[in-house]
């Protein structure tokens, strides 16, 4: 019996010829994040297994809004020095970790990475097994190893031709809306099919990023020339694309014909509440905040489409639009391309790259009774601040169009 992409990668890292779903493995891990360095120190360990394969950044409360947060980062910087971590990205040279770590060569096809932060499934866009380790990231820091239960694999076939105005966000909101936010629970989800190839790397990245929103352990794409183009110059090691065997066993296969897809939004409460935005328009949902940011949708082409929509227009007087690029690199590119100028002229507030608003921590928290349309990933009650606020998830185009209209609208009317 052949193996899926995840099975091949896990087998290779466990030194096994074959592996099967349900099997427990100890695997060598290619990289991790430094969030658990304090735990390592508390355990009395004075070195990490490989300082060059530990990446770290402070992105949640960045820069710190309180003395307590400042002291926490101060402590982090001490640990970074103590453990000789070179891949540390200071404010102004960083951004949101999933973007920044990729920009600095953390992920390559075939890699197995276990790092802190749930959106680590994002790394699956690079044809790699990238997932969350939280407390046990300290085990990786100490030993360079972690246990895994081999997940069953499922295939999602993205069929047809993606309409010009739809993007990866609309695809994942469609998939989560149809299959539910638990269809990938404890599974490796592999995205294949014509639309997977048509999508830009950035769009696939959104789909992998929200892999955790459908419960997935891994959310993997095959690699192609778009993958290689992004990685070129960012990696100093060879890699090989990993493909599934023709006779690999999938627990389930789901096919979506996306030729008729229209822009999607997820109603407040759950990322699986996806519906076509055209069906919501009649409800006249007033928007207080439009957020274009997060690790999910704040890459260069996300800022480009927002700038295209907002060019020569204005953010509605009752709306504040917050824009936070996914990294400083993206910020710089958007600056040079003129996108940020366009957004600022339209009345948007351009922030630095941060996780802050998405998790309700910093730089754009919602108050009681407010409504936000957001390009981020989660709309659980209380996610972006007040439990009495509503968060709708949408693509960057839908966020930008809604910011102009002051209510949730179909972006096709503005393109």
């Amino acid at each position: 019996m052949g193996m899926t992409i995840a099975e091949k990668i896990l087998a290779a890292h466990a030194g096994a010829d074959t592996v099967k779903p349900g099997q427990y493995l100890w695997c060598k891990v290619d990289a991790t994040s430094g969030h658990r360095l304090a735990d390592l120190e508390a355990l009395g360990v004075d070195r990490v297994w490989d300082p060059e394969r530990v990446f770290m950044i402070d992105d949640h409360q960045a820069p710190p809004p309180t003395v307590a947060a400042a002291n926490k980062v101060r402590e982090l910087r001490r640990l970074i020095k103590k453990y000789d971590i070179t891949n540390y990205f200071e404010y102004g040279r960083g951004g949101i970790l999933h973007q920044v770590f990729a920009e600095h060569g953390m992920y390559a096809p075939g890699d197995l990475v276990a790092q802190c932060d749930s959106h680590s499934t994002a790394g699956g866009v690079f044809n790699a097994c990238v997932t969350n380790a939280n407390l046990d990231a300290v085990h990786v820091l100490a030993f360079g190893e972690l246990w895994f239960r081999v997940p069953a694999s499922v295939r999602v076939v993205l069929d047809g031709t993606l309409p010009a105005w739809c993007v990866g966000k609309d695809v994942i909101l469609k998939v989560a809306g149809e299959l539910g936010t638990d269809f990938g629970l404890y599974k490796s989800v592999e995205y294949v099919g014509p639309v997977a190839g048509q999508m830009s790397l950035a769009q696939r990245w959104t789909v992998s990023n929200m892999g955790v929103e459908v419960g997935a352990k891994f959310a993997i794409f095959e690699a192609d020339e778009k993958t290689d183009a992004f990685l070129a110059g960012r990696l100093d090691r060879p890699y090989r694309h990993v493909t599934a065997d023709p006779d690999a066993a999938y627990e389930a296969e789901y096919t979506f014909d996306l030729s008729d897809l229209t822009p999607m939004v997820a109603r407040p409460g759950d990322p699986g509440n996806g519906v076509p935005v055209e069906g919501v328009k009649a409800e006249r949902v007033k928007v207080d905040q439009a957020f274009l940011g997060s690790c999910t949708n704040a890459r260069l082409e996300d800022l480009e489409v927002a700038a295209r929509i907002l060019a020569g227009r204005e953010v509605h007087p009752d709306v504040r639009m917050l824009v936070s690029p996914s990294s400083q690199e993206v910020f710089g590119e958007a600056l040079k391309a003129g996108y940020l100028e366009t957004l600022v002229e339209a009345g948007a507030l351009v922030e630095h790259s941060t996780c802050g608003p998405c998790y309700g921590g910093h730089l754009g928290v919602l108050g009681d009774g407010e409504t936000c349309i957001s390009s981020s990933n989660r709309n659980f009650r209380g996610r972006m601040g007040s439990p009495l606020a509503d968060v709708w998830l949408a693509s960057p185009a839908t966020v930008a169009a809604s910011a102009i209209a002051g209510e949730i609208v179909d972006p096709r009317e503005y393109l």
Partner: protein
Amino acid sequence: METVRTGRVWKFGDRISTDFMVPGHRVLANPDLSSDEAAGFCMEANRPGWASEVRPGDILVAGINFGCGSSRNGSEPLKALGIAVVLAESISRIHLRNAVNTGLPTLVAPGIAGFVEEGQSLEVNIVTGEVKNLDTGALLQAEAWQEGTPPYEILMAGGLDAYMKAKLKERGLVAN
């Protein structure tokens, strides 16, 4: 680790996210909170006041995809509140792993949502996965961790910290 645990049940619905257990604007934004202070905000958005009603030894029962969302350790406030066992129809991978590492017995128990009412008492064997409803006498089998697997070893050690200490000594990475 105490193998058989008995307690009264609190019931929650489907998709209880870790954002509910560890609210970002309350806890992540305030890193100087103690564990007990942070636990006071547990489930604030979805069930205000619950954290102050929990008694040590209580059992939490939930529906599908318990602990979905962020990798925030939802087991930390639950443990701090004294929850002895968590049983759910299904549990997110990240949350389940956090639970093992925190040493809070947390079992996938298909059928549990219809098996017990809030306020009833359960007896749970956290090793075999046997669940008994002490009010109705009914039995349910939860998914037990297989003996010898890494999560079993970590849970039985009492959590990751104890497991790591033993392993570091074994490999000679720390002084005895």
